[in-house]
Every structure is written in structure tokens, then in C-alpha cells.
């Protein structure tokens, strides 16, 4: 923890992340207007005192939409990781612990999934399932668990040969207790690191999906979708895509800095 705090970039990143979470939680109080409120008298306005970041092509307040967009990004970032961990960690742990044929089959499957270009598969799944937040969780979860399963498997493989595990087994500990109490707690570090890097990846995936129009259902605002729609009018109304672009860039950089910090603090060898 102290090592993490000494890393200034990581601290800055962490602060931005906390701020984004607060914005996402209190979006209802922070947003000056509801994100669906249209004002057809004032379309595509540049930033002014009433509309701090201007209005979009339907006369909706850009600032309010960006605030609600933070909610979508954070939800996807965390939610998708929950799905990934719940799927990937048990599969990897069981595969590594049992070994033998189970391991062989699971590893083959993981290898095939790994060979598929990730984003290509997510887009395929999303365009088939249709847009929507739940479907984004499913699509990212279905493709994302592979990496973490691999990592967990490698960890379990290394740890299960240690003497203390043998000791616990000699004392009569069963499969569940051995894995849950003795092996997994010691295998957590790389998983935590993988999750901190997985969050920005999920946020990126959502933004990318919404950008091409298969992510979040309108009118729910998403930064990626705002950039996607705004870039069509970039020549006349630059503010439509610039502000959400900045939001995505800042979020991604914060998570990257924070993730680097966490990795260096937990395991300096990994660097």
C-alpha cells in the first residue's frame, strides 16, 4: 500500500477513478438537466453559460449526458470484470488443480478462444444479441474469461506442489478446502493485477461497441456513442465529439497509471 502511495502517477490516477465513481453514483444530483431533455430551439450549441459544454443535435445538454455516460462506463468496467472473474477463476483453478484429461480439454478450449481476435468476436456476439447493457456484460464476459483462466491455472499449477499444500492434504483437508483456503489466497496477486488492467479494457470495449452502434441502446448516453455520433459533424460542431473523447482518454489513462502502480506495488518482479 505504501509503495502504491509513493507512485505519484498512480495516486493521481486513483483520485480520478474515485472522482469518476462518485460522479457515476451521484449522477442524478450532479447533472443540471435530465439526459433525455431536449430543447429544439437550441440545437448543436457551443458551450455557453446555460449549457456549460453545449448541446447536441437534439438540443440535449452535453454536460448532463457526459455525467450519465460516466455511470455506463463505470458499470461496464466493474460489471464485466465480475462476470470475467466468476467465470475465469473457477475454470482456471479447477483445470490447474485437477490436471489430467479435464485440464487438457479446458486448455484446448481456452487456446481456441484465444486464437480468435477478441474485438472481432465481441462485435459478432453483440450484433447478434442486440444492443443493451446486459448484453455487453455477456459479450465481454464470454470472451474475456479466457485470459484470467489461463493465469489462474498457471498459478494453481505452481502452488499446488508446495510443501504446505501437501501438509494440509496430509492433515485431511478436502478438495474444496485445499483450493479455497490454501491455494487460492496465495494465487490472488496476478488475478488482482489482471482485473485492474481488465477494467479499462472493458470500458474501451464498451466505448468501441457504442461507437459503431452495437453497444448501449439510445437514449442512454455513452461516451463512445457520443464520439461516434459527434464525429460525423466534427467540421461544424467540434464540441460534440471532443468532450466525450477527452473523457474517454482521461479515464483510460487514469486506469492505466493506477494499474501500473498496483502491479509494481504488489509484485515488483512482474515489471
Amino acid at each position: 500500500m505504501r509503495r502504491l502511495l509513493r507512485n505519484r502517477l498512480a495516486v493521481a490516477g486513483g483520485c480520478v477513478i474515485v472522482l469518476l465513481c462518485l460522479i457515476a453514483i451521484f449522477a442524478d444530483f450532479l447533472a443540471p438537466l435530465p439526459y433525455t431533455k431536449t430543447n429544439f430551439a437550441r440545437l448543436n450549441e457551443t458551450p455557453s453559460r446555460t449549457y456549460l459544454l453545449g448541446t447536441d443535435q437534439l438540443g440535449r445538454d452535453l454536460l448532463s449526458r457526459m455525467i450519465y455516460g460516466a455511470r455506463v462506463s463505470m458499470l461496464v468496467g466493474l460489471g464485466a470484470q465480475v462476470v470475467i472473474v466468476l467465470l475465469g477463476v473457477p475454470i482456471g483453478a479447477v483445470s490447474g488443480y485437477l490436471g489430467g484429461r479435464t485440464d487438457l480439454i479446458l486448455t484446448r478450449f481456452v487456446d481456441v478462444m484465444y486464437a480468435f481476435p477478441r474485438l472481432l468476436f465481441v462485435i459478432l456476439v453483440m450484433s447478434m444479441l442486440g444492443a443493451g447493457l446486459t448484453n455487453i456484460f455477456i459479450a465481454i464476459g464470454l470472451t474475456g474469461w479466457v485470459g484470467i483462466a489461463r493465469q489462474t491455472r498457471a498459478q494453481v499449477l505452481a502452488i499446488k506442489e508446495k510443501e504446505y499444500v501437501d501438509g494440509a492434504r496430509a492433515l485431511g483437508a478436502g478438495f474444496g478446502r485445499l483450493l479455497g483456503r490454501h491455494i487460492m489466497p496465495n494465487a490472488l496477486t496476478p488475478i488482482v493485477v489482471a482485473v485492474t488492467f481488465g477494467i479499462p479494457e472493458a470500458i474501451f470495449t464498451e466505448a468501441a461497441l457504442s461507437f459503431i452502434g452495437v453497444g448501449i441502446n439510445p437514449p442512454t448516453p455513452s461516451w463512445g456513442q457520443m464520439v461516434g455520433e459527434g464525429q460525423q459533424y466534427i467540421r461544424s460542431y467540434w464540441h460534440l465529439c471532443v468532450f466525450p473523447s477527452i473523457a474517454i482518454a482521461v479515464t483510460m489513462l487514469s486506469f492505466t497509471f493506477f494499474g501500473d502502480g498496483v502491479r509494481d506495488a504488489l509484485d515488483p518482479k512482474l515489471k
Partner: protein
Amino acid sequence: MLHYALSRVLWLPPTLLAMALVTFLVMHATPGSPLDPVAEGANPLSPEAQRNLAKYYGLDRPLHEQFAIFVSKAVRGDFGNSFVYKTRTVREILAETFPVSLLLGSMALALAVVGGLMLGILAAVYQNKGWDYLSVSLATVGVAVPNFVLAVFLIILFSFVVPLFPTGGWESPRNWVLPTVALALAPMGIIARFTRASMLEVIRADYTLTARAKGLGEVPVVFKHVLKNAFIPVVTLLGPMFAAVGTGSFFVESIFRVPGMGRFFVLSMTGRDYPMIMAVVLTYGAFLAVMNLAVDLIYGVLDPRIRF
């Protein structure tokens, strides 16, 4: 070596077949059909018309038969007619758009390798000085920020603030600059980071010390002794790099209005243009698989220590 190369080549067709099967199943397992009305809420076609169309396109047969027909035709390079662009065959569309994507991708990759290596070398040679910070921050931005966001910033900076390049199109080499840069920044960042790390390791190696001890200057030491050895791990990155450039092109092509294949990828999926989806996924898949194979073989040639 020959044995290894041969077995890798023989593994290509089964891999592609598996990829085709997965895509095919995902495509057919989900609700919605190409016979659905294009616009939401529009009147559906009459049942007879739907039946006729299904028969015409072979959609009324059992799934395994459809798949078998697809494979036997695809092997001969025939992907059928596009469902959306009804007058054109998938092959025509690909023949027209793939070269554009290929050109864009190769230019981006070349820029990424050259730029990334230069940034990495500068960073390692001037460790913890100005150049290092500059190249590390550039690399971080390139890696962390999605390419469609970079593209927006590039357009603002180099089309509006300083009107050097057009905002899109593909007519002249001047149009090529911004999409290439937008696509190259992410892989460039990865290469720069990796080169820096692997250079720093080699710079401290004993043989580098020996090279300096016998009186070699900085330039021959860096280029002849350090870079040659530091370059090997970088080659392994080229595989994922191709994937990054390939998938990145969907976004960059649509922002800069590049008439490449990436655009069709999304269009065909949302339009449930089955023949087009299969063709595009397989083209990307095959391309990536072949490139990965090439990278692995080059790796073996570069580093004689590696035995297959």
C-alpha cells in the same frame, strides 16, 4: 525446423474451419434472420415470398447441410452473393476493399515498427532523461487511448487548428497520413515500451561492457551490439500487432471514410448478411493466422538458440 513449419502449415486449415464453425453457429443461434424487414416496424414479407427467398439462398436446408455447402464453395473462393448488396458477389466486394485495408494496415505497421523502435532506443539510451519521459508518455497515450479517440484529436489538430491534411477520403497520399498515424499509434506505443525494456536489459549485459571496453563508440555499440539482441523479443509482438491493426481498422476506416474492408464488417453483421459475415471473419482470421505463422518462423531464423 522444416518439420515444425510443415506441421504449423498443416494446422492452418483446421483452425480456420473451427473459426468458420464458431462464427456460423453464433450467427444462426441468435434471434433475427436476413429475411426480417430492413427497417424497424416495417411490414414483413409475405410467408410465400419468405419461403421462396429462403429456398433461393439455401436457408431452408438443415444447418449442417448449409455449413457443408458453404465450406465446399468457400474452398473454391466462392462466397456467394451479398444479402445486402444484392447485385454484387462477396468476392467482388472483397477484391475491391481488401487491397485498401491492406495498404492502410501495412503503412500503419511500418510506421509503428520504425517509430516504436526509434522511441524505444531513444528512451533506453537516455534513460530517465527528457527523451525517455517524452517517449514513455507518447507510448502510454498510444497504448491507453482508443484509436477512434486519437483520430478525433488528430483531425482537430491537423485538419482544423493547423490545416495540413484533409479530414478523410482516400484519393491521394495526403489523405493517407492521418488514418495511418491514428492506426499506428497503439502498436507503436507497445513496441516502444517493449524495446525500451529489452534494451535496458541488454545495455547492462557483459558483452556490451566488453564492446565499450575495447573502445567502440556509442553508435556502433547501440546499433551493432545492443539493438541486434534487444530486437528479438520485439519480433514476438508482431503477431498481436497485426491483430491490433486489423481490428483497429474498423474504427479508423469509418472515421476517415476509407473505402476498406473494415466498414463492411460491422455493416454486414447488423444487416445479418450471412455470406458477407463469414467471408470477412475468415479473411481476417486467415490473414492473422498466416501472419502469426510467419512471425514464429522469422523468430526461429533470427534467434538460432530457439529449437522447435
